[in-house]
């Protein structure tokens, strides 16, 4: 198994998933390593019924969930589905939010996307930035195909609302 290639081919996808689901940036690197170690460990059980990238994304999402569960053991994180419903825990200090320049369109947009609940942010990211199909997203998030479409639609609506509510309406032209 070429482990270097495994990391190289999927690093962006794994990073995206972590970025969208866990707000604690200090933990991102640890989770990133953990995801790939989990992938290597589970590789003998990969049956090839889905694409390798779909399977890795699924491991990444579950690793993030377990990480949050472990990190917040005193609080009730709930089931995987409950966790997806939630928003990433606040992690970016308000002063940093304010320091984002108004003119930096992509960073502002990225910031609004990061505020969405995971159930909306993840499908939007996987669809638009990773080019994944509805079926792949459905498999990763363990939801029906129709739910993927409605979450994508709701995700765009929420994003629009957040942008307009944050006085960033000009971002969308």
């Amino acid at each position, binding site marked *: 198994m070429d482990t270097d290639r495994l990391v190289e081919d999927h690093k*962006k996808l794994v990073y995206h998933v972590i970025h969208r689901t866990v707000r604690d940036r200090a933990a991102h690197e640890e989770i990133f*390593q953990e995801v790939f170690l989990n992938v290597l460990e589970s590789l003998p059980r990969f049956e090839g019924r889905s694409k390798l990238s779909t399977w890795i994304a699924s491991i990444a999402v579950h690793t993030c969930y377990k990480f949050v569960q472990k990190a917040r053991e005193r609080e009730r994180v709930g089931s995987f589905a409950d966790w997806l419903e939630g928003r990433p825990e606040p992690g970016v200090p308000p002063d940093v939010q304010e320091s984002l320049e108004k003119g930096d369109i992509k960073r502002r947009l990225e910031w609004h996307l990061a505020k969405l609940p995971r159930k909306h942010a993840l499908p939007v990211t996987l669809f638009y930035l990773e080019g994944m199909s509805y079926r792949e997203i459905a498999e990763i998030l363990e939801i029906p195909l129709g739910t993927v*479409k409605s979450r994508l639609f709701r995700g*765009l609506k929420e994003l629009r609302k957040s942008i307009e509510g944050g006085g960033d309406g000009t971002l969308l032209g």
Partner: protein
Amino acid sequence: MEPCLDDVLRWDYLNGALRGGDRALFEEHLGACPACRREIDELRKTAAAVAGLTPPAVPAAWTAAAKDRLRAKALAAAVVPSGPALARRRTNVFQYAAIAAGVTGGLALLFGLVMGNPVRSWLPDLSAALGIPGPSAARTARFVVWILSLHALLLVPSIIDNVYRLVTRGGRK
């Protein structure tokens, strides 16, 4: 505002997946409903903005660290025996312990029997035959036999090893 149409339908229209009669009906509705028309128009712009986002770059140090850890783990997995091999070794340890206990017990029993009455009764005759006079000489002879017996104990591990090999070779046939 309450949506006039289903999310999945609106999503499909937004992505050009709505065809034929469904599309015609949807467009007919859009013509009569300015709110839906505005919403579709806004979401189209939002989708275009998200699709234009540049994914954040994965820090090079993370990639390097992940590659290193995966290489080390893959190497360790190649060196460390797999699960079944470990299980077999564990079984062998139990087998070895059982054989050691059996052999030691058997030898102890044999030693007790030999050093019991038969030997004690032979010792005075042996002393007389060797021309060693008196009870103190018999005690000395007994002491010498004890020392020789203790030396014989050194053979016990070798006996255990041989019995163990015999048993395991027989089992692998």
